Structures are given as structure tokens and as C-alpha cells.
């Protein structure tokens, strides 16, 4: 029992840090950059992806023994598309304002490489419980990344966080941050910063 628990913990932590889908694996970048003009959008798309990941990882892990290897990818995509359609319909029904803002980027989560990547690399080889832990870790890692990028862009580009003004009146919003260039530059600098920190930590460890 204890070993399975540590294993689950490891699968979970893996997605949050060591193999963070956005900053380390650089997967699923399109929605991460496109919709993260505000913290709310960033967390919104993250949670939508988390739900799809949970559903697809669970189902794929359950059906992995019945699906012939040659046609596995189309099958996985179908499972993912089903969950994406569910998320889309739920969002349309209960959070129409958020759906309006995320728009087609919810739809194209079908082809999000994180989700298909985890299906292929993890859920198709592991039992159900670790697959769920992996989905949680990866999903939260993605939510965190999208949320951080959204927060940075909203604070610098609009002077607000979740719609609440956080910087005083002296602050002049940098409009470019909520426009496309801001997204590219934010993520570039974030990854560079992470690289620098990791390199320094490794250097210290080897000393």
C-alpha cells in the first residue's frame, strides 16, 4: 500500500515540476499563449484541460488492452474529442462568458499535444490509478503555467489581477503585453529564467 502511495505521489509531482508540460516539455503551447490575456482565462483553460486529461487518461488506461496497436491513435483522439465536446457543452451551458472568451481554443484542445502525449506515453502503459495521478499532475502543472503567464500578462498589460486593480494609478499599462508579442516574450523569458535557475542548482549539487 505504501509503495503504491509513493509511486502515485511521484507520478503527480513529475507533472507539476520535473516534467512540467509547458516549461519543460514545451507541449500544448497554442492555448497556453493564445488565451492567457488574463489570469482568469489562464486558469480557466487550465482547468478545462485538467478535466479532459483526467477523463481521457482514465478511459484510455481502462481500454488499453482491447485496442489494437495499429489503430490506437485514432481511438485515443476519439476518446479525447468526446471529453472535449463534453467540456465545451458544459462551458456553453454554465459559463457562457468564459466560453465566449476562450472560443475555439476549447475546441482545439482535441489536438493538444499534452493530452494526446500523456495518453500515448503514460495512460496506454500504466494501470488506472497512476494514470489518474499523472493526469492530475500534468493538468495542474499546465494550469499553473497558464495561470502564471495569464497573471503576468494581466498585471503588466492591464494593471489588474483577476479584474482587481493591483498596481496604483501611477502605473501605465503596457498594452503590448496583452497583445500577441507579449505572450511570446513572457514565455521566452520564463523558460530562460527557469533554465538559468536549474543550471545553477545543478552546478551547486555537483560541487
Amino acid at each position, binding site marked *: 500500500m505504501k509503495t503504491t502511495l509513493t509511486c502515485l505521489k511521484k507520478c503527480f509531482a513529475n507533472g507539476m515540476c520535473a516534467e512540467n508540460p509547458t516549461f519543460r516539455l514545451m507541449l500544448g*503551447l*497554442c492555448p497556453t499563449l493564445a488565451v492567457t490575456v488574463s489570469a482568469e482565462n489562464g486558469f480557466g483553460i487550465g482547468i478545462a484541460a485538467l478535466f479532459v486529461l483526467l477523463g481521457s487518461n482514465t478511459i484510455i488506461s481502462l481500454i488499453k488492452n482491447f485496442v489494437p496497436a495499429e489503430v490506437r491513435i485514432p481511438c485515443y*483522439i476519439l476518446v479525447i474529442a468526446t471529453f472535449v465536446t463534453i467540456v*465545451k457543452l458544459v462551458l456553453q451551458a454554465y459559463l457562457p462568458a468564459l466560453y465566449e472568451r476562450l472560443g475555439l481554443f476549447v475546441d482545439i484542445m482535441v489536438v*493538444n499535444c499534452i493530452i494526446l502525449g500523456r495518453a500515448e506515453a503514460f495512460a496506454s502503459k500504466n494501470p488506472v490509478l497512476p494514470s489518474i495521478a499523472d493526469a492530475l499532475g500534468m493538468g495542474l502543472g499546465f494550469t499553473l503555467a497558464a495561470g502564471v503567464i495569464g497573471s503576468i500578462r494581466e498585471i503588466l498589460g492591464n494593471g489588474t489581477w483577476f479584474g482587481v486593480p493591483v498596481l496604483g494609478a501611477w502605473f501605465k499599462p503596457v498594452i503590448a503585453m496583452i497583445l500577441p508579442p507579449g505572450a511570446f*516574450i513572457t514565455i521566452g523569458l520564463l*523558460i530562460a529564467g527557469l*533554465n538559468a535557475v536549474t543550471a545553477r542548482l545543478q552546478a551547486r549539487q555537483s560541487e
Partner: protein
Amino acid sequence: MEINITRIIGIAVAAIFVNNFVFARFLGLCAFIGISKKLDVALGMGVAMTFVVTMSAIITWPLYHFILVPYKLEYMNIISFILVIACFVQLVEFFVRKFNPALYKALGIYLPLITVNCVVLFATLLNAINNLSFLESVVQGFSAGIGFALALVLMTSIRERLELARIPAAMQGAPLAFIIAGLLSLAFMGFSGLTIG
């Protein structure tokens, strides 16, 4: 049915420049960052992409207007479109492997990955949602591919030049690519406000 030439040109210009699929809509970034290292490979990928996205627009239009809409199944558009696109890419892969093995080798994993490239799905869904006519859909699909190819070639040319430059270790690879993309996207913003038709 009359064909509105200005509107067609407007759609093309919007998809290639104003709302460039890479720089303004952030689509196809995985391939964009991953494959923009050698110019000839980038060109091959751009051509493959243009072909796939144009053909997908041609195939999904009748599917949407003659099957999904009459039976009120519009909510099935994601599932049905992705299936059609996946089958089609499989066909292209087969074709390229047979007739141009060198290109097939160079494109590697990225060719099958066109299936899961958001440019294709996004362009076809956009056609369906905006209720474009058949010709407009094809033009939008083709322009989306050209816009992607243009972005890829620009990016690759810049990265090839930077190969020999001395840059901080932490910035090497992806971070620098993102910064370049940011600057290019800033340049492409010059097109915003440009509308035809």
C-alpha cells in the same frame, strides 16, 4: 451564385497577414518551434501543411453542410473533423514516403503530427462556424497554410543566422526562439487594421 472577388482577397489577406495563424493566433507552435532549424525542411513542412489544410477545408465543407447541418449534429463537428483529417494525413504520409523518402526522413515525426496540428482543425472549424461558402473555405484553408509556411520560413532563416551568434546559455534554443517569435509578431501587428472587402 456570384463570386465576390474583394471578399475572397480580404479573407486571404486576413488569414496570411492580419490574423497570421502563428503570430496572431498562436496556432501550430509545437511544429513552429520544433522544426524551424533548417530551411529546406521548413519549406517542405510548409508545403505539406498548405496541402493538408487546403484539402481538409475541401473535405470538411461538404461534411458539415450536407451531413451535420441537415441532421442538426453541429456539435459533432470536432469529432467528425478530426477523424477526416487524421485519415487524410495518413494518406499524405504514405504518398510522401513513396515519392520523396528524403523529405519523409527529414520531416520525421512532424508529418504524422500535422494531424494534431491545431492550424488544420482551427481553420476547418473556423470555416464551419463563420458559415463560409465553399470557395471562401478553400481560400481560407489555403491562406492559413501559406501564412504558416511564411512564418516558418521567416523564423528558420533568422534562426539559421543566429546559429553562430554568442548567446547566454540559458537563452539557447526554445527561449530565444520565443523571443524572436515575439519580435516577429510585433512586426506582424503592423498589418492589423488592414481590411479589404
